[in-house]
């Protein structure tokens, strides 16, 4: 294939007019199939909401959790989604900081995953609450109750970590959308123009605005990195801080962060492949992007297998009775099937696919990513449930299996995630148009800005004038 020509592969050198036409198409054109997809997703997701209302009215008892397994599917999903959210912002920020030019068509795709995965993931601690209607008691505000939240609780750290990360990623996602929204505004008419006028926040494309945007993005990229790392570390501490056998482990922080990035990249590859097909972006999301991300995924897969080996070996060698009960239940007991499925999904299957250059194609990386997403969900489940089934004392063992309530809600939120992404891809150009055109904007924008200062009230079609026009 001509596209495999590595030297040219990551250069996207189309006329700006073509880029605009290709990438703005979904914003201006809505197909019947799109409506059908949205309706289908809403229809599939609604039962989850209905079942959640049922759970609130009946009580947590309709779910499968019990004593001593007080956490089950909901917390698994929570950790899973927060993990998925590490795709975007983290990768995008790293690639921005090292100035990797091939990142340009990928970043927005990735950042959007972060925001939506966080929005879905953050639902789960609330879905899981016994009295969900009082979730706001985690927020420190002066209230008639006269007490603060307990700042020693990892759940309160969670609240702060996730809300910080969500705010940061949302800013990180929205800032570079502004010029693209301005571009839509300048081309739209009627209601669409009015909506995008508000969204574009009065962007005119002056050099000053471009400069500020770039500075802001650089600052955000630096700030968001430690936030992203801290978020999944704190999620891991929900477990590591409790004296539960197999949870109380120092390796959990880095182990969770590595797993999060791992599952995040996998999710990104799947989403990119779907977007590429659905929006016909074959010329923008090229094999080289999948190849590069595939290499990154390979590294994370090795890192993951290293972490799980380190964690399991130390537990096994330490041979403490309480931990060994949980250990063996995973290794060769009730959870052995899930464990070995996880190892296959996260390492045995994806490793050869990603390691062999010939197999590291778009189809190959998507297959590897799909198994990894499944494997990482299982990993979260195996962290949450088996240790709780095997606490210290023999009277205190139990077993957990989910009910239809947990399964329906889980399915519903997966549909919700897809729906959010599908809507996003409609209202926002999924590939950052101005970034794709890279340094081309500076010169003509300066000219345009000169026009703008003459009469700023006139909204010019100058956001990104064509250089060859």
């Amino acid at each position, binding site marked *: 294939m001509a596209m495999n020509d590595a030297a040219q592969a990551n250069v996207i050198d189309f006329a700006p007019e073509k880029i605009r036409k290709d990438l703005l198409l979904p914003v201006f054109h809505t197909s019947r199939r799109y409506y059908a997809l949205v309706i289908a997703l809403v229809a599939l997701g609604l039962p989850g909401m209905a079942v959640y209302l049922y759970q609130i009215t*009946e*009580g*947590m*008892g309709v779910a499968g*959790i*019990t*004593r*001593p397994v*007080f*956490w089950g599917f909901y917390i698994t999903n929570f950790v899973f989604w927060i993990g998925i959210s590490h795709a975007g912002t983290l990768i995008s920020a790293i690639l921005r900081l090292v100035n990797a030019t091939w990142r340009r068509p990928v970043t927005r795709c990735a950042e959007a995953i972060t925001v939506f995965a966080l929005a879905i993931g953050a639902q789960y*601690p609330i879905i*899981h*609450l*016994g*009295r*969900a209607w*009082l*979730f706001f*008691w*985690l927020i420190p505000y002066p209230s008639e*109750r006269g*007490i603060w*939240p*307990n700042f*020693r*609780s*990892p*759940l*309160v750290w969670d*609240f702060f970590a996730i809300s910080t990360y969500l705010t940061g990623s949302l800013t990180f996602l929205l800032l570079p959308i502004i010029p693209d929204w301005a571009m839509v505004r300048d081309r739209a008419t009627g209601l669409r123009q009015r909506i995008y006028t508000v969204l574009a926040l009065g962007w005119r494309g002056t050099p000053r605005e471009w400069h500020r945007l770039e500075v802001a993005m650089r600052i955000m990229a630096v700030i968001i990195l430690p936030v992203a790392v801290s978020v999944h570390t704190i999620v891991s501490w*929900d477990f590591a*801080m*409790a*004296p*539960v056998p197999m949870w109380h482990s120092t390796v959990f922080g880095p182990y969770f962060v590595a797993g999060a990035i791992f599952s995040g990249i996998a999710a990104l590859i799947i989403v990119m492949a779907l977007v590429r097909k659905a929006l016909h972006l074959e010329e923008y999301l090229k094999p080289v992007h999948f190849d590069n991300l595939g290499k990154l995924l390979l590294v994370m897969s090795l890192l993951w297998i290293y972490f799980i080996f380190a964690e399991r070996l130390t537990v096994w060698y330490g041979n403490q009775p309480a931990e060994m009960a949980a250990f063996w239940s995973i290794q060769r007991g009730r959870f052995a099937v899930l464990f070995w499925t996880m190892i296959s999904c996260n390492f045995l299957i994806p490793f050869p696919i990603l390691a062999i250059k010939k197999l590291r194609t778009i189809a190959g990386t998507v297959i590897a990513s799909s198994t990894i997403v499944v494997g990482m969900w299982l990993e979260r489940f195996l962290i949450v449930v088996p240790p*709780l089934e095997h*606490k*210290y*004392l023999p*009277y*205190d063992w*139990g077993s957990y299996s989910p009910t239809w309530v947990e399964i329906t809600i889980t399915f519903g939120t997966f549909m919700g995630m897809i729906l959010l992404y599908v809507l996003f891809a409609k209202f926002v150009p999924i590939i950052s148009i101005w970034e794709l055109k890279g340094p081309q904007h500076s010169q003509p924008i300066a000219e345009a800005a000169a026009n703008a200062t003459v009469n700023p009230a006139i909204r010019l079609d100058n956001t990104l004038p064509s250089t060859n026009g």
Partner: protein
Amino acid sequence: MAHRWGMAIDLDRCTGCEACVAACHAENNIATVNADQAAKGRTMHWIHVERYWEGEFPNIRARFQPVLCQQCDAAPCEPVCPTYASYHNPEGLNAQVYNRCIGTRYCANACPYSVRYFNWFNPAWDKPLQLQLNPDVSVREVGVMEKCTFCNQRILAAEIKAKAENRELQDGEVKPACVQSCPPTAMVFGDLNDANSQVSRMAGSVRATILLEEVGTLPKVIYLERESSHGNE
């Protein structure tokens, strides 16, 4: 000096009759759970009696151990609660403030003894038990964690009575429902800060042990191991 409430349980005396379990249910308005829920592990007995078999057949002996909240001094359930529902009260008890609980169930995971009980549904009682609710104890709603309080309502009542009569509390004056109802008087409740109290003397016995000492929770429930279990049967 402030009280430091503790309990000693002599396993040589415990017959496993479970009178303590029944008394606790009656005193503390603990909901009853139907058979299906019980099979799922959702029974709510703030105190329950564990039975172990010691020795090899035919030289075999039952050992009964009532397990209730161990009222740890370093309680893992307390720091993890995001809303201070689970907190250390001035007399060293692990109090559970039901109205603050939002049901994260983190405390119950952190508890090494799993002696915290969650209200999976709104409470219900097998008829006619709903007619004998104790007016001194609040009824917990759905979504809230609950646990043994060492019958805090009795402690408070006794303290108020002593104060009104302008005197010190006597050892043995406060009796939680389980202690009061124990036919072989295996359970003793009292002030561990009072060196002469019966519970303090029992805590100093060579037979005194605590449950899961290695976890470092510093419980205030002391078990007196069975005498002959030290030697060969």
